[in-house]
């Protein structure tokens, strides 16, 4: 076992090398650029035997990934922010054609105004493209989930592409110790990708994604919906296998932290989760009954798991680093949908938009709001903007 101090971007690139990707097609964009640069070095230095394409845009990069994956090979790319927005129309093609492309997305604010810091308004709006999305908390999870992502995406019951979402700079450009899985163990965990549903081969032609009248497309949509639901189970299986082989258990769809006996539970995603763990410890030590749920998968959405959490507490707060204007944060909207029929208050806490630092006082305030709702059985405000000048939280 080798431990090295590396950035999230390095972990994402190294994981692709461990997964022995066949094709990498990408376009650099801050703060993802280093992922692509590291991979180009691995290929150049002969460490990774992979076709490397530096495309002229993200739209082309995703188009190349679709074509490559459709030939039946393991395909990888990475992007962020505007780059993901530019890929938008091609994302649907990968999703509907069941092409298990793996793509780290370094979550960065989408303009305007132009910003380069962490916000989830790049990935959240892509939730309906037929891609899975997992949000990670630290660089170890970047490494581990990128490898697991291939296994989940390539599972015959799923066959869907996946985004591994990591916060800009807070992970992408931060170094911390990461345990590097051994190649032979990864090989055992992740066998080569051998599809039969989509394999373009001139000797045995196939038609993928051709013009299709209304007689067909609704069934194709149902297939994507069903395979996305199948992924709920596959995520858990792959997590369990990873935990067994590599000793790190991420909890699967969600991870619960000190939720037993908690009155007030905060659901977070991404890096805010880590700081929130400290606050939970602090509050528990002070006798305050709080707990934390780390939402890992946003697609497929773990409806059942969220319902189980809600049945054991008095109020829930959902943290969002993005907002659907006039409607609340996307993660909160999903949680409320999952919790239809439950009577406990479910409030939304918004903070860290545009990459603003989410501080310990911010997170204490989040827990205070949820505790207050738990005590009163109702919330004064359903949607709470934290740390916004001129807005009372």
């Amino acid at each position: 076992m080798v431990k090295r101090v590396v950035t999230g971007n390095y972990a994402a690139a190294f994981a692709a090398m461990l997964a022995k990707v066949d094709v990498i097609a990408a376009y650099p964009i801050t703060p993802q650029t280093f992922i692509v640069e590291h991979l180009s070095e691995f290929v150049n230095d002969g460490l990774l035997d992979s076709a490397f394409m530096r495309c002229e845009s993200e739209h082309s990069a995703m188009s190349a990934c679709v074509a490559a994956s459709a030939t039946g090979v393991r395909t990888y790319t990475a992007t962020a922010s505007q780059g993901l927005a530019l890929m938008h129309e091609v994302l649907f093609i990968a999703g509907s054609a069941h092409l298990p492309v793996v793509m780290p997305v370094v979550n960065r604010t989408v303009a305007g105004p132009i910003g380069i810091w962490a916000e989830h308004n790049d990935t959240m709006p892509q939730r309906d493209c037929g891609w899975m999305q997992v949000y990670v908390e630290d660089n170890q999870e970047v490494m581990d989930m990128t490898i697991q992502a291939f296994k989940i995406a390539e599972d015959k019951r799923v066959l869907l592409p996946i985004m591994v979402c990591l916060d800009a700079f807070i992970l992408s450009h931060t170094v911390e110790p990461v345990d590097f899985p051994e190649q032979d163990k990864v090989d055992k965990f992740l066998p080569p990708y051998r599809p039969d549903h989509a394999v373009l081969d001139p000797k045995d032609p196939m038609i993928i994604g051709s013009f299709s009248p209304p007689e067909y497309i609704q069934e194709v949509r149902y297939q994507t919906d069903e395979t996305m639901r199948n992924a709920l189970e596959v995520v858990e299986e792959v997590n369990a296998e990873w935990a067994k082989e590599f000793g790190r258990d991420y909890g699967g769809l969600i991870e619960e932290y000190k939720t037993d006996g908690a009155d007030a539970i905060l659901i977070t995603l991404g890096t805010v989760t880590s700081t929130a763990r400290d606050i939970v410890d602090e509050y528990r030590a002070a006798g305050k009954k709080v707990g934390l749920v780390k939402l890992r998968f946003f697609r497929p959405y773990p409806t059942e798991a969220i319902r189980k959490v809600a049945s054991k507490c008095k109020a829930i707060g959902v943290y969002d680093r993005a907002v659907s204007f006039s409607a609340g944060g996307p993660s909160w909207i999903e949680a409320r949908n999952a919790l239809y029929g439950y009577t406990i208050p479910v409030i939304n806490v918004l903070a860290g938009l545009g990459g603003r630092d989410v501080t310990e006082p911010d997170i204490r305030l989040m827990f205070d709001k949820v505790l207050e709702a738990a005590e009163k059985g109702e919330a004064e405000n359903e949607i709470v903007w934290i740390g916004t000048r001129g807005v009372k939280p």
Partner: protein
Amino acid sequence: MYEVRFHGRGGQGAVMAAQALASAAFQEGNYAVAFPYFGAERRGAPVMAFTRVDKDKIFSKTLIYEPDYIVVLDDKLCGLVDVSDGLKDSGMAIINSAEKPEDIKLGKAVKCATVDATTVALETLGQPITNSAILGAFAKATGLVSIDSVVEGIMDIFGNRIGERLATKNANAAKAAYEVTQVGTCQGGFECEKADKWLPGYDELPLGLATRPMETPEGLVGPGSFVDNKTGSWKTFAPIYDPDKCIMCRMCWFYCPDGAIKEVGEGDAKTLEFHHEYCKGCGICANECPKDAIKMER
């Protein structure tokens, strides 16, 4: 409320006819809607258009499955498409045909009107475009709209698209057709061949609709088209191939939209074969050939 289904071929103007009928009914104080249904259609393919007319606002946004009237712009369609499918027993068929209503064979025996709209169109427009003439027959046979309103409808819809001068000619075609329309009853019991449509459940559909081609002798076709879809019946002009002029550049093969051209033979003996069952006579091959090796002939 009455509902009309138009059957034509891509390019014959069934959609404009449906719109002009709606406009005509509107001139008489009705509420009327007309809409097309576009499948994977190309020029020459059987198409449908619909008109719905009522005294009050129409809310229904569905296609028409049980029409009161069917209008057929090309009587050759009667053998290809079940034009009278769902037609009410009390309904009526208005057909462009040189034959008498009594000689027309449909799925059911119903009231029927025929008019030789092709001849009328050739005389008034100088072209075999029948979408305006057939509306004159509709007015005469059904009495639901007056011929004056039909003229107004044509001036409105055709006028916007092709200008007043040509619209006037089309209005004249409708008036001429009005005079020569015959009304009677057609024969029933005709069964047209039903195309075998591939409609698997979601769990039998290949994942993401990535299909192994259903191979035809002519080439590869996808899920929207079928071996049974003999597009050859659409053609008026057929390609005549001269192998002596051909340099085997394969431009025609590349551009043929129906995969109707196939390479045969080996080495120097290589030549092309045109499959007339599938060739729809579009003439693209002749247009693309750099050596004039293909001529389109009737």
